[in-house]
């Protein structure tokens, strides 16, 4: 049993480096035409924060409407547009690009010792496509909104609504290519551009997780694209792919849509899991327990994730055999997630644990993701699904995974790498307050929705029976707290850009390659190509290196 010395903070003497990717070039154009993966990550970060705020406003209005059983705040059509836009914005413009396009873009090249992604221009194109998708979504909103639900269910979307379906579908179609390009870039970069000595099993788990998500993006998104094209064609020129009166099959749409949209769930959560591995290891100063198992469980999730889509259709009259097969596969995909949760827990064992903000978010993630994952097993179980699907139970379930899981992981990651991205620390006490507030607010918002769901309250309901009011009031109260918890980081992170303490190269004493270079990094990341002769999360190597630096210094 070997030992590791705990942190030697280098913050006290730290100074902002004279030259970094932030001040290498000046002017708006130097940002808009940049090929630097770090600058593109910042562009993405700003844009997704905007869309998160927008989606959050929709969520707030939805919860406000549901405060009372009567439809009194807005008209039914408006309400339907609210939850549609909330879903579209949050999923396609926030969750899918959240970790990969910001943290992934920033960190993956650095973590594997490369100077940039394989295709910097395609990376920039990806951001522009994302922005075109975003602007078109805003256009659909301004022109009168869209009320199909984010699921675009046919024949409702093709024949029965006269809102901006085609505009919204085009927006998602284009944003989809942004995600394909990001995935493509990551796959090529990880395969071809690792530094000497950076073998597959020396890569940080964050890279593994993003690699798995990239495979899903590249293979899954085209299916969504073609599905949306078919919807648009059926809507505009009336081809009969989904329309039963023309010999089409409305269930075909469900198959095609969920063939992307279920793996999309893993596109959203896998990178978050990568963040959690990094954070937990760093703040317990310990190698991730069972590195290989965690790495392979990411790949297993990606693989199984493609074969469970029909569990969204158990009550739609799929054949009994396919219901059985898809339920079984759904149970199997839950196992790698369980493995990860236990591996993270055991990473803490015999560590030397400190509780900085990213760690608090990571703890929140473990708890909330466990609930989100287990309630997924409820829904994967055939007979149980009949009663629970299409109710608030499912709403609560995916918010536990997407907000409790993914968003907490995203915030963990943003706080964790904030010093690296900006060179400055966020204020610790405010951020702890925000982590605790969001955790409490989150549980208060979504726990009552499980109860509502079992009671049978259907999702996407503008009005509801009076006996469900108490639980809805609780949920709305929670959403208010949650909203504050999510607004705080926006404020204090902005503040810290100018007034935050200077971070230094490695404020967390973490082992990743990104922490061995200056903060914020140089445009070219490394002054010389690093040679990797140690494993990931090797705290002894770090201690040794720090010791030498101290002696030399």
């Amino acid at each position: 049993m070997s030992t590791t010395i705990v942190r030697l903070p280098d913050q006290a003497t730290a100074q902002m480096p004279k030259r970094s990717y932030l001040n290498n070039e000046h002017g708006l154009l130097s940002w808009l035409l940049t090929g630097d993966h770090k600058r593109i990550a910042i562009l993405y970060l700003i844009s997704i924060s905007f869309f998160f705020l927008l989606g959050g406003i929709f969520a707030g209005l939805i919860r406000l409407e549901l405060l009372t059983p009567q439809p009194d705040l807005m008209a039914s059509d408006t309400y339907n547009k609210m939850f549609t836009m909330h879903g579209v914005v949050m999923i396609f413009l926030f969750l899918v690009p959240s970790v990969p396009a910001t943290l992934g873009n920033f960190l993956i090249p650095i973590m594997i010792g490369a100077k940039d992604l394989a295709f910097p221009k395609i990376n920039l194109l990806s951001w522009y496509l994302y922005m075109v998708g975003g602007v078109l979504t805003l256009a659909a909103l301004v022109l009168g909104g869209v009320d199909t639900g984010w699921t675009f269910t046919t024949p409702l979307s093709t024949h029965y609504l006269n809102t901006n379906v085609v505009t919204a579908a085009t927006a998602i179609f284009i944003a989809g290519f942004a995600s394909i390009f990001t995935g493509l870039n990551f796959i090529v970069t990880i395969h071809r551009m690792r530094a000497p000595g950076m073998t597959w099993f020396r890569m940080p788990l964050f890279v593994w997780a993003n690699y798995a998500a990239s495979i899903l993006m590249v293979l899954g998104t085209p299916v969504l694209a073609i599905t949306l094209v078919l919807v648009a064609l059926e809507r505009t020129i009336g081809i009969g792919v989904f329309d039963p009166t023309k010999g089409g099959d409305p269930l075909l749409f469900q198959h095609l849509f969920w063939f992307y949209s279920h793996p999309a769930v893993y596109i959203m959560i896998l990178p978050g899991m990568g963040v959690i591995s990094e954070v937990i290891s760093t703040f317990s100063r310990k190698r991730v327990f069972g590195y290989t198992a965690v790495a392979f469980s990411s790949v297993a999730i990606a693989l199984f994730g493609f074969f469970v889509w029909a569990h969204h259709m158990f009550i739609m009259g799929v054949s009994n055999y396919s219901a059985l097969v898809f339920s079984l596969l759904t149970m199997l995909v839950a196992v790698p997630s369980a493995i990860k949760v236990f591996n993270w827990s055991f990473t803490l064992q015999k560590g030397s644990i400190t509780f900085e903000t990213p760690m608090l978010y990571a703890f929140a993630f473990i708890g909330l993701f466990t609930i989100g994952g287990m309630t997924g097993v409820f829904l994967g179980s055939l007979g149980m699904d009949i009663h629970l699907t299409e109710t608030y139970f499912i709403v609560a379930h995916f918010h536990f995974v997407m907000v409790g899981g993914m968003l907490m992981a995203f915030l963990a990651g943003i706080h964790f790498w904030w010093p690296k991205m900006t060179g400055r620390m966020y204020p610790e006490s405010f951020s702890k307050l925000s982590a605790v507030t969001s955790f409490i607010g989150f549980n208060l918002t979504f726990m009552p929705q499980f109860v509502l769901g079992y009671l049978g309250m259907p999702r996407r309901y503008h009005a509801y029976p009076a006996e469900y009011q108490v639980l809805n009031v609780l949920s709305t109260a929670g959403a208010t707290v949650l909203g504050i918890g999510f607004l705080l980081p926006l404020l204090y992170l902005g503040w810290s850009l100018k007034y935050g303490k200077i971070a230094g190269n490695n404020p967390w004493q973490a082992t990743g390659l990104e922490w061995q270079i200056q903060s914020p990094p140089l445009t070219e990341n490394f002054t010389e190509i690093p040679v990797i002769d140690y494993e990931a999360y090797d705290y002894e190597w770090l201690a040794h290196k720090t010791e030498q630096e101290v002696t030399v210094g």
Partner: protein
Amino acid sequence: MHISPVLWQFLVKWLNSSALFPREASTIAPYTDALYFFLLLITVVGLVLVGALVFGFALRYRAERHPVAEQIEGSTLLEATWTIIPLALFLVTFVWGALLYFRIYTPPANAMNIYVVGKQWMWKAEHPGGQHEINALHVPVGRPVQLTMISQDVFHSFSIPDFRVKREVIPGRYSTVWFQATEPGTYHIFCTQYCGTQHSGMIGEVTAMTPEDYKKWTEQSTSGMSLAQNGERLFASMGCNSCHSGNAASRGPNLAGVYGSKLQLANGSQVLVNDAYLRDAILNPSQHVTAGYSPIMPTYQGQISEDGLIDLVEYIKSLDSNYRVQQTLTTSDSSNQAAPNTPGMVKP
């Protein structure tokens, strides 16, 4: 602190009338709830376990108490444990869930059938005896009831939470669900699949009644014409009887007794004649040509509403002999005016 008695009364009433757990009002409900509590149990146990590990380790190994971390690579034994135990639990859940699924979606042979048509934004229930209801459904307790459902426009989903049953109502195909109510009372019907503007208004009430009350209700609320009788009139007014006359020389196959039989088709395949087949054969006849007949029947796509199709299907189901067909033939020749304004019969 002083609280106004009016406000206090309001709060107490408000809390008392709030729901926390749905009623168990069907034979299925206890089975569903049993699985639910099992799942809840393993969730809580799992959560407590993970919580204990995280909090236990976090306290025991916090930096102040444990300043130096000890590196551990992993443990195959431990990892195998937390792979196999969850897997086993999930497999139990899978089997249990599958059994429940088949229980909920396999109607008993003696179930009474009620048709339900979903459309934006209402539920229409059609009882074989000719009772029509909108956003309401009357059923007897203690007797299995099967719903044969179809949508006239978009996807809907028929849900009765207190019975723990739900099924998607799909345009262009019949789907079925069954239940047996145990407690007289009224229960919510919800449309749970988002279906457009008034989605949250597509609600209704199912009234479960004692058999005596139910009998009384059926007698009082019948429109005087059973579905089959409506179908008979439609059969005549659409001119179906000119080919499906039941004569040996007629151009269309004999329909008497066809329901429930195995039919040999012209393309060589064999099909079981059920509701869905009959509906399809009326709408897309060229794909369902009975062996020995030529494909001359025109399509009725867009000409008959879903209600009309249900009437026709019920009529054909009721045909044991050709006596009625021939009766229809003679009456429709003499008095075509008699083909009445059955509600929703023929779309203009």
